[in-house]
């Protein structure tokens, strides 16, 4: 087990290192000029030169990368070129938004998908099953940005129940939760449709097994059998998908944050790439990579918890 954790941690560090090198070279190869982006098309050559000096763009690429790695190891991710404040400050002020959205999207997905998936499996080949399959098919097909617009038109423009976008922070929790409802639904619908189908088929697989029949025969209620025996045994494929979905949710916030004009990391990375704000892009890509790698790591650990038989193999 400890060897497993050590191996994964080494992999984690190596992944981040490779990601940092790739991002740094890509951002330097990409055509663009941060100084010209900031000062605009009327800028004079000497003002551009002065700004490049200020931003440290005059040093060779390799020297900049080495000093970036050195500082990053000490927890200093540099100063954003376009915002002119420490990147860590930018991330710290936007992280709560994106984490709130991703976590809310995950909870929404789990609640909807597990209920619908197990429910459909229990009503296999009946109306409820067909209904869930039909709805989830639509859920998979609908693009998130289009669903967002429909939700806004109905709940914000027509009914005026919820705000059409924006997020003012958690200082007013009721307003914050109201702001998150529509983005959460828009973010979670596709994922829950996928997960509901996986849950259903995984549950059906388990239900065909002997121990389920034995449990029923021993007098347990249908419901108890479903939630206590079928679901836990169906979890391995579900957890695999959930792990992948968490990564998709985090990256999915990029689109959702644009449609609902939420001040999160997704919008920040979008803006920083077009501004050629290398320090910010670098830190954000590292963060997203770290989240994805961590999610996979947690999934691997969960396998062992769910199915102790797997321990021997790790």
């Amino acid at each position, binding site marked *: 087990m400890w060897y497993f954790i050590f191996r994964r941690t080494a992999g984690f560090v190596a992944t981040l290192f490779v990601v940092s090198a790739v991002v740094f070279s890509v951002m330097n190869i*990409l*055509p*663009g*000029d941060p100084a*010209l*982006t*900031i*000062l*605009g*098309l*009327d*800028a*004079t050559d*000497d*003002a551009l030169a*002065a*700004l490049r*000096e*200020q931003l440290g763009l005059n040093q060779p690429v390799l020297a900049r990368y080495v000093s970036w790695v050195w500082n990053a190891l000490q927890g200093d991710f540099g100063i*954003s070129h*376009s*915002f*002119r*404040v420490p990147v860590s400050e*930018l991330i710290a*002020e*936007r992280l709560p938004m994106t984490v709130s959205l991703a976590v809310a999207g995950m909870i929404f997905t789990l*609640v909807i998908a597990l*209920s619908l998936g197990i*429910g459909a499996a229990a009503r296999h080949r009946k109306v409820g099953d067909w209904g869930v399959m039909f709805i989830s098919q639509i859920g998979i097909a609908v693009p998130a940005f289009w669903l967002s*617009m429909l939700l*806004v*038109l109905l709940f*914000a*423009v027509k009914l*005026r*129940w*919820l*705000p*059409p*976008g*924006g997020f*003012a*922070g958690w200082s007013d929790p*009721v*307003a914050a939760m*109201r702001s998150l409802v529509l983005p959460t639904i828009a973010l979670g619908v596709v994922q829950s449709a996928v997960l509901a189908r996986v849950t259903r088929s995984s549950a059906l697989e388990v239900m065909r097994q002997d121990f389920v029949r034995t449990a029923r025969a021993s007098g347990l209620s249908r419901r108890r059998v479903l939630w206590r025996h079928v679901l836990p045994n169906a979890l391995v494929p579900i957890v695999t998908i959930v792990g992948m979905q968490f990564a998709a949710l985090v990256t999915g916030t990029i689109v959702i944050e*644009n*449609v*609902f*004009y939420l*001040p*999160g990391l997704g*919008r*920040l990375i979008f*803006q920083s*790439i*077009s*501004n*050629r704000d290398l320090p910010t892009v670098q830190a954000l890509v590292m963060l997203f990579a770290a989240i994805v790698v961590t999610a996979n790591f947690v999934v691997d650990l969960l396998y062992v918890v769910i199915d102790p038989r797997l321990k021997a193999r790790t």
Partner: protein
Amino acid sequence: MSEFSRIFAATTVALGMGLSPLAAAADQIIIGLQQEPTTLDPTADATASIDGMMTMNVFEALTIVAENGEVQPNLATGWKISDDGLTYTFQLAQDVTFHDGTTFDADDVVFSFNRAMAEDSVNPSKSIFKPIESVTAIDPHTVEIKLSRKDAFFLFNMGQGDSAIVASESVDTNNTNPVGTGPFKFDSWTRGDRLTLVKNPDYRDAAGVALDKVEFRFISDPSAATAAMMAEELDAFPGFPAPELLVQFEADPRFRVNIGSTEGEVILAMNNSKPPFDNIEVRRAVATAVNRDEIIEGAMYGQAVPIGSFYPPHGTAYVDLTDAYPHDTAKAKQMFTDAGVEGTTMTLRVPPFPYATRSAEIIQSELAAAGIDAKVENVEWGFWIDEIYKKKNYDMTIIAHTSPNDMGNFARGPDYFYGYDDATFNDLWGQIETETDPAKRDALLQEGQRFLTDQSVHVFLFQLPLLGVFKTSVEGYWSSAPVLYMPLKGVTNAG
């Protein structure tokens, strides 16, 4: 399941309960902006929304440009110009304080100008300070500025965000905490979401400021902007991004739509430095192949004024040259054949702005009809800046030049991305920028317009419109923008 549904129902009720968007009080306004700023100092970053929010609201300059383009006194209450036109003596407003309580005087003016002119200055319009030789404080309320040559646009340029007066005490933090002398004080900023200003009670004309609080919200997506207006989350969207979505506001009695003009000339730029566009006949053929009315109808939903040269139709020196090369596909085709370029392929590299990408598709089909295969490449802004603007690696592109008095672009020499260099025009521009008599200057500007059209340096397409959507309660907004700022001092929201 029932447990879930109960919690779910309870949450839904809690969230749905009331608190519909805070009804804006009469002395407040919530304004939508498409472009999000990254810093708040107009003297160090060219982002247009910084000027849009900060200039003349938080920061002030010696002069101010009115809606009709006229230069008026501001922090300078008056000025004297020496007979040779080289020395300007400004009288400064008295009893003015910066928002942090420090006093405004001549030293702040000297400091601001020296900072903008310094060797390590990162002022985005540093060239407007080039004619300045020295800036001297005569007494605390008098400043003398000496020029090395006459400058026709000097007083106009002194009324821009680039020449805002800042204080040495606060200049280093203006990026995130702007401190000026204007009618509004900076209050708070949630990057990416909103920015709030409050009325400056110590403003020298505080009685003339109606709004107590101004909130800007940053919404880049046009459909999200529409929804936010429709849901009445916003009171005004002065620079509305999508002409195609205006119809629904025009039909709605809650809103007023304004279609004004800006200083942005949209051009189909041709790379004059290399074949085939180093040949004037090819450039004229492109001008003949292009149909402005079709482009304005298709790309701007009819909401733009065509231009035939590089000067805004609302300017005092405007001459209508839109008929210089009447649209004639057959003639254009013949011209391309005569020049030996019929059937060749050219690139049309377009930056990611709706006016540009939509115009490109129409121009592509118009050129195809005249026998030219234009390959449209939609490129991202960073790419455009580097490949097209810096390296001139393009045949044609579409771009709006949004600065006022920018005919001098054509005198920026062969290294500028136009690749255009003409001694006659350089000389003419030299006369224009030093002619301080308005009537004579207008005559020269007309000569300039005719010259550029005759040379067919680019195809001049249309003037970028200023599209605004306002709740009917909002009054006092400028309907056209001769500069990049829009003062909120005279704006009211009686709703």
